[in-house]
C-alpha cells in the first residue's frame, strides 16, 4: 500500500519529504516507470502538483530567467522569455524525448534524477544555471556544474526539493546538438553551445566574444572546461579551432561502454560533434 498526498504548500511538502521513504511526484515521467517496474517502493508519494510557487517562467530584472521546477519541457520549448544565449534552453527542450513526455516532464524532475545522458544537465551546465533547492531548513542555490555529481547522483539531500532553475543573461545564441540512436532517445553524445561571435562570412569564421561549451553523456557528469572557453574568447573561431576545443573536452571525457556505443567510439566522435555545433553557432 502506497500513500498519496497532494499538499497545498511547499512547507507541507517539505515536511512530508523529510521521510526518506517518501518520493516527490512532479511530471512522473521518471518516477512512475520505476514504480510500475517495482524498482522503487516508496511508502508515500507527495505530489507537487498544487504548488503554484514551483510553476511558471519569469524574466527577472537584469535579464535572468527563473524557471519553476514544475515547468514542463514543453513550456520551456515554447517560452519567448529566453533571449540571446538563453535560447539554448528552448532549443534543448524541443529535443527531449517526444511530445507526450515534453508535455508532462518537468525540469525539476529531470534535474533531481540526475541522469547525465539526459538533456537538461549538459545544457544547464553550459548556461551556468543556478539550481535552487529548498528544505525545511531553508533554501540554497547550487551552480549546475556542482549540482550534477555522478550517475543519478546530485547535490540533493533527503528532504530537499529542486524549486527553481535560474538562467543568467547570456550573450549570443544557443545551439544544442544531440546525437542519438533514434529520435527521442537519450543522447549518445550531446553538445551544448552558447556563442557570440563577430561573424566573417567570407572565411566562415568569427571572432569569439563569448562562449560556453559543455558536452554530455560522455562521463558521469557534463563536462565544461572553463580553460577551453577562455582560450577561445578573442580568437577567430574556425573549423580547426572548433575541433581543437572538442579534442580538449574529449581528453577529459570518461564515457561508458554501453548500448549506445563504446567509450572509444564516443571519444572519437566527440570532437567532431563539438566542431559541428560550434560552427553551427557561427553560421546557423
Amino acid at each position, binding site marked *: *500500500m*502506497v*500513500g*498519496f498526498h*497532494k499538499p497545498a504548500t511547499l512547507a507541507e511538502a517539505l515536511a512530508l519529504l523529510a521521510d526518506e521513504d517518501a518520493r516527490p*511526484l512532479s511530471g*512522473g*515521467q521518471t518516477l*512512475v*516507470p520505476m*514504480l*510500475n*517496474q517495482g524498482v522503487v517502493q*516508496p511508502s*508515500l*508519494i507527495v*505530489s507537487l*502538483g*498544487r504548488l503554484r510557487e514551483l510553476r511558471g517562467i519569469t524574466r527577472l530584472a537584469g535579464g535572468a530567467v527563473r524557471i519553476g521546477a514544475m515547468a514542463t519541457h*514543453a513550456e520551456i520549448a515554447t517560452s519567448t522569455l529566453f533571449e540571446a544565449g538563453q535560447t539554448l534552453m528552448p532549443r534543448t527542450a524541443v529535443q527531449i*524525448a*517526444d*511530445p*507526450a*513526455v515534453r*508535455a*508532462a516532464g518537468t525540469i525539476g524532475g529531470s534535474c533531481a534524477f540526475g541522469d547525465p545522458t539526459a538533456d537538461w544537465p549538459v545544457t544547464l551546465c553550459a548556461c551556468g544555471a543556478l539550481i535552487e533547492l529548498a528544505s525545511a531548513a531553508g533554501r540554497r542555490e547550487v551552480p549546475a556544474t556542482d549540482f550534477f555529481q555522478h550517475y543519478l547522483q546530485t547535490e540533493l539531500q533527503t528532504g530537499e526539493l529542486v524549486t527553481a532553475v535560474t538562467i543568467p543573461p547570456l550573450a549570443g545564441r544557443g545551439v544544442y546538438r544531440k546525437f542519438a540512436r533514434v*529520435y*527521442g532517445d537519450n543522447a549518445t553524445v550531446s553538445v551544448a553551445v552558447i556563442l557570440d561571435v563577430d561573424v566573417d562570412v567570407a572565411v566562415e569564421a568569427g571572432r569569439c566574444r563569448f562562449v560556453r561549451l559543455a558536452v554530455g553523456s560522455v562521463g558521469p557528469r557534463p563536462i565544461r572546461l572553463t580553460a577551453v572557453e577562455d582560450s577561445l574568447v578573442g580568437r577567430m573561431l574556425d573549423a580547426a579551432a572548433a575541433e581543437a576545443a572538442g579534442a580538449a573536452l574529449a581528453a577529459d571525457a570518461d564515457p561508458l561502454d554501453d548500448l549506445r556505443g563504446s567509450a572509444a567510439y564516443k571519444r572519437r566522435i566527440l570532437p567532431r560533434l563539438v566542431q559541428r555545433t560550434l560552427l553551427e553557432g557561427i553560421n546557423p
Partner: protein
Amino acid sequence: MIDITLKVNGSEQACRVDGMTTLLTVLREQLLLTGSKRGCDYGICGACSVLADGRLARSCLLLAADCEDRAITTIEGVAEPDRLTDLQQALVDAGAVQCGFCTPGIVLALEALLDVDPKPDETAVRTALGGNLCRCSGYGAIVDAALKVAHG
C-alpha cells in the same frame, strides 16, 4: 486506499486507488474503458495515450490520485457516440489501421496535434507521432491520413 473522483470524457467517476495506481489501470479495470492499451507500462510505446486537459499524456505514467484536477479524454471520448472524427475516418480510409493496438494512441496524438496546428506538414506530423510506436504499418498510411485531414 484513497477515494478519488476523476473527470473522464466529461463525466465524474468515483474510484478507489492506491498511491501508485496509474490512470491506465483505473481506466481499464475500474471504469472499463479498455480503449487505452497497456503496451509497455514504461512510457515508451504510447498505446496508453490520453488527453489530460487537452494535452497528450501517457496514462501509464499518470498516477490516478494525481489526476483529480484534470479533465481526461480517452479514445472513447474523442468522437460523438457511434461516430468517427474526420481523422479516424481518414485513418480507416487510408489503410492505416492494421492490428489496431497502437491506433487509439495514434488517434489521440494526432487529434492533439490538429487541435494546436490544423495544417501541419509531414515533419510536424511525424514529430507528433514521435512517442507512438507502430510495429505493423511503418507509419506511411498514418501520415497520409493526417495530411489528408489537414490539407484535403
